[in-house]
């Protein structure tokens, strides 16, 4: 598979019809494994990384589903292609900066990305709808068994699967979830929520950057593995916290609708007005306004003739596609990107009948 074909396919993060609550947009199970006898990628030479890739790649290419996968060494990918893959979460920031001996493998039919010589020798991300982490864990454990049959994996009885950061050694599994939290963001509660989550061994960061930027009101939650936590304990704790956060977000949305109805309708109306009339649109504006449009749709402020779920998916797809095009524009210098973006959104709103309800 070629990179252009890959970038035209829907992103792994693209929400599906199973995302029912409009808060949880997807989850990732991250599995890491290292080969015994080789330095970790962060401390290795190009020769060592090449030796790891030489061992790992033939094994991966023999696994069902990976035989016809897209496979590239990072040094073969342009800056724009890396940025496009990064926005689609098919590369991690750490991996996007790497060069020789580092490979990314993306199968066509599995919602999985496999990276060789990322922070660890083998890193696999399994993308799941909603909060379907159990399925992701099962898939990753099956894949881990297949890898362990062929490769000598670094493991110790005391620490579990060994990783470059000792506090992450153990089951070699980490859990992530992407949440859309416009209610808590608009109610200025995110700082308090972040501090509260830290106490519960869960980290939260804005989806589009590591800073305090709340673009698109989307956040990634990450379960920090404790040294004595089993996978089941970690999963239970993570799921409980997320479901609690989802309930709080929904409560805050309803509260905003009752207490600050005019402010909320004004914010959503302004976003709608901008999208229907703009001639130029930046990515930040697009993400912020689409987030408010999603909120307006979920609260019934904007009503569509089509089914609500399809509209939510389509809105998210526009945002992802435009981010991908922005990344690729680094290479081919596409002119008028801001105008193209604005036109795409205007056409979408024109082609999908809807009305703005006032109460």
């Amino acid at each position, binding site marked *: 598979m070629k990179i252009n074909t890959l970038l035209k396919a829907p992103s792994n993060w693209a929400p599906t019809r199973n995302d029912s609550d409009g808060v949880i947009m997807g989850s990732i199970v991250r599995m890491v494994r*290292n*080969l*015994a*006898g*080789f*330095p*970790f990628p*962060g*401390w*290795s030479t190009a*020769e*060592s990384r*090449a*030796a790891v890739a*030489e061992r790992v790649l033939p094994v991966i290419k023999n696994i069902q589903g990976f035989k016809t996968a897209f496979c590239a060494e990072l040094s073969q990918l342009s800056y724009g292609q890396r940025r496009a893959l990064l926005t689609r979460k098919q590369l991690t920031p750490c991996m996007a900066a790497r060069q020789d001996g580092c490979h990314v493998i993306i199968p066509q039919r599995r919602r999985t990305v496999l990276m060789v010589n990322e922070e660890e020798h083998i890193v696999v991300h399994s993308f799941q709808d909603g909060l379907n982490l159990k399925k992701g864990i099962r898939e990753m454990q099956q894949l881990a068994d297949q890898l362990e049959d062929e490769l000598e994996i*670094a493991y*110790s009885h*005391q*620490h579990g699967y*060994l990783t*470059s*950061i*000792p*506090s992450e*050694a153990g089951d070699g599994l980490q859990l992530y979830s992407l949440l859309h939290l416009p209610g808590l963001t608009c109610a200025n509660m995110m700082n*308090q*929520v972040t*501090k*509260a*989550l*830290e*106490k*519960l*061994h869960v980290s939260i960061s804005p989806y589009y950057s590591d800073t305090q930027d709340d673009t698109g009101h989307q956040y990634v939650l990450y379960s920090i593995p404790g040294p*004595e936590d089993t996978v089941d304990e970690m999963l239970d*704790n993570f799921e*409980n*916290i997320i479901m*609690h956060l989802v309930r*709080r977000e929904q409560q805050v949305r309803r509260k905003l609708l009752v207490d600050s109805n005019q402010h909320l309708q004004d914010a959503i109306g302004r976003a709608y007005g901008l999208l229907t009339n703009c001639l130029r649109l930046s990515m930040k504006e697009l993400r912020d306004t689409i987030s408010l449009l999603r909120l307006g749709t979920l609260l019934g402020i904007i009503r569509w003739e089509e089914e609500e779920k399809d509209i939510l998916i389509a809105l998210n797809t526009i945002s992802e596609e435009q981010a991908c095009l922005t990344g690729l524009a680094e290479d081919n210098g596409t002119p008028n990107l801001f105008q193209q973006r604005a036109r795409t959104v205007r056409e979408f709103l024109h082609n999908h009948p809807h009305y703005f309800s006032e109460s």
Partner: protein
Amino acid sequence: MFLTQIVNGQVSELALCESCARAKGLFDPQSLTFAEKFFPEEFKQRVDKLVRELTGNAETASEPAPPMSMFNRCPVCGFSVDNYRNTGHLGCPDCYKVFARELDPTAEIEDAPETEAPALTRARLQKELQQAIERENYERAAQLRDQINALTDADA
């Protein structure tokens, strides 16, 4: 910092110094209160676990700690103990054995490796062998071939 927990009428109290409280994520009383209100059940479970861990550790704390690792540098990958202290990362899987005492002062020490990783040695030798053949240095190529064979025999 003082942490008091009352479960079924049983009171357990813990006194923590500032650095220990910070390490356990208990340094900001305001956010602690918020966490308790926002996630009451999850917070209670976490505090219960913390109390169990801390009281468990207190029982074994009187035993004298064994001496720290005798290695300052991993013989397999060359990573130093200072690198670990500065970055929190390790260099290779064998660093876990070499710096075992640094990672956990109470850990039982396994035999630490003393040489370069065999897999890397083999990869390096094979690369040198390839170069020797390309340069038509067959004497050197024969030596390298023997070294690779010896490594393979040792593995078997």
